[in-house]
Structures are given as C-alpha cells and as structure tokens.
C-alpha cells in the first residue's frame, strides 16, 4: 500500500466504512510510515474530541417558551389549507380576468355603450336561467326536454355558475384576510 491509498483508507476508517481486511492493510502501512501514522493520530484525536464532546443542554424554560410562542400563533393551527388558499386566489384571478375580458372586449368593440349592453346581457342571462327553471318546474319536463332547452342557455348557465362561485370564494377570502390582519403576533 502506498501513502495515497493509505489516505483513502484513513478517510474510510473515519467514515466507519472499513472492513477487517482493509483495516489490517492500513494498520500495516501505519506501522511502517511515520508521516501517515502522524496524520492518523492527529485525525483520531481531533475527530474523537468532536464525537465525544458532551451534547449541549437546553437552557431551562426554552422548551416551554417555544411551545408558548407556537400556541400564540393565530388559531394554533398548522398550515393545512395551502390547497384551499390556491383555490381561493385562483378564483380571484378568474373573476378579475373575466371582468377584464368583458370590459376589454366591450370597450374595444363598442365603447361604453357596449359595456352597458354586456350588463344587460348578464341580467338577461339571469332572468333566462330563472325562466328556464320555471318552465322545467311548471311543465314537469323530462331530462331530455330540458336538455333541448337552448344549448346556448345551458352553456351560459354553467359559465354564470362558475363566475358566481368564484366571486363568492373571492369575497370570502378577502373578508377572511381582512379579519386576520387585525390579529397581531404577540411575540
């Protein structure tokens, strides 16, 4: 074994990754090489001191203080709502983008009067939805007949429902956030 191989074996020895046969080879070299023996002795002392140093003791009261600080965090509830937050903020974004699209298209195509027309169109949609539901209820239409009732209306109903849900979720998030901003972390 030469000194370069010995250094490699030394490192593996301190990794606790040397088998008996390899240790014998290393030991034989250490007995014959003063330089490598010196390196081995120093490393053994240094690393041994690090490994056997007493673990530090926690100051008294630190554990209780930490727990108290955690309990004082708002609601003492771990963050298990990250998925919900993403949905809420996604809803806000959906509403904003939809409004921007409607406003942008209206202004682009027909100016403010176009915007007013869009508002009327939305009101018509709502009334159309109500009328459709009344027809279904009054005449006891079957599912097939209901499906035939203006495909266009059904698609718009779904669109309105999604927007309404997004608006509701967005408002709920905003009000909840405004409520939480009032609480301060006492630490």
């Amino acid at each position, binding site marked *: 074994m030469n000194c370069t191989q010995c250094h490699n074996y030394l*490192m593996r020895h301190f*990794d606790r990754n040397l088998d008996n046969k390899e240790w014998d080879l290393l030991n034989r070299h250490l007995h014959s090489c003063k330089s490598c023996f010196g390196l081995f002795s*120093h490393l053994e002392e240094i690393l041994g001191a*690090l490994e056997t140093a*007493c673990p530090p003791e926690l100051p008294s009261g*630190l*554990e209780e*203080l930490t727990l108290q600080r955690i309990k004082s*965090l708002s609601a003492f509830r771990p963050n298990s709502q990250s998925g919900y937050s993403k949905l809420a903020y996604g809803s806000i974004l959906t509403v904003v983008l939809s409004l921007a699209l409607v406003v942008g298209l209206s202004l682009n195509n027909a100016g403010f009067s176009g915007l007013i027309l869009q508002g009327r169109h939305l009101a018509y949609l709502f009334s159309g939805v109500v009328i459709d539901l009344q027809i279904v209820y009054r005449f006891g239409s079957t599912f097939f007949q209901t499906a035939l009732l203006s495909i266009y209306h059904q698609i718009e109903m779904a669109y309105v429902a999604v927007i309404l849900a997004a608006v509701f979720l967005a408002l709920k998030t905003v009000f909840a956030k405004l409520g939480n901003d009032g609480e301060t972390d006492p630490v």
Partner: protein
Amino acid sequence: MEPSDYGLIQSCLAGNQEAFAGILNRYKKPVYSVIYNLMGNSTEVNDLFQEVFIRIYKSLDSYNPEFKFVTWAAKIATNLCLDRLRQKKPALVPVEEIEISDSEANPEDQFLARERTMLIRRAVDQLPEKYRMPVVLFHQQGVSYEEIAGILNQPLSIIKNRLYRARLMLRERLCSDGEEAISL
C-alpha cells in the same frame, strides 16, 4: 406504546395541541445540538431554536414520512443557521461553556482537555461553511452521508469530498497552531 412521529404529526394537523408538544419534547435535543454546533453563540442558538420549531410547526403538512423526522428537522435547522451565518459571523464559544466529558480526570488534565477542545472547536468554527456543515453533521450529530446530502441538497460525492477536505484542513490548522496543543 409511544405514538410514531407520523401519528403525532397527523394528530397535530387534526388540531390536537398536545401532539406538537410531544414532537417538541422528542426532538428538542438533536435540534438544539445541531444549532449549537453550527452557530457557537448561545443567544443566537436560543432564538434559532424557537424559529426552527415554529417553521417545523408551520410546515408539518409538507413532511414526507418516507424520511426520518430528525433529518427533516435537521435540514430546517441547518438552512436557518446558514441564513443567519450569511448575515453575520458567529462568535466563538467561551471556554467556560465547553463541557468536558471526562469528569474523573484531575484538574490539570481537565484544564488541558478543555484547552484542547476549545482549540478544536475554534478550528471547526473557522472552517468555511461548506466544510463546517458536513463535519458538524457527521462527526457531532452522527448523520449519515446520504442524509447530509439530502439536508444540504448536494450530491453524495460532493459531501464526501468536502468532509475529507475538512478533516485535512482541521489537521493543518491545528498543527500550525502548535502540535503540542492537541496532544495529551
């Protein structure tokens, strides 16, 4: 029978306040040890200890039970310590704060052992961060190579090289300070 780490975490996420106290009690010593050995300053250690467990508490839902909880906690502690170290240089540990494990030695031997340990601690503190971290985690915390690689987000080969290099640097530094200082 003691509940598992994952059981405690699930209980905590379900709203059981006592469950996190159980986690804190179970891992306070290894976490404190990591921070203490990396930072070497008692005031910062206490603050960081609290910050680590607050961060652990806030991130419980992201814990992956495939890995040991202590490794995950050590990773959070190491990252926080790294952030703090990059802001300021840590102070050296005063001699009085270094515990010597051999309580049966005579006072002179105790003094010499304390001096030696202080020199070694100082040499470790003076290592660049990327070399100090593997030394502290491997030789003082008993963390495996694979776990260190996960904690520091580095390939295994890099960790090995750095640890080998760190050992040689410690030896060079301590030998240049006076060979007799570290010998019995």
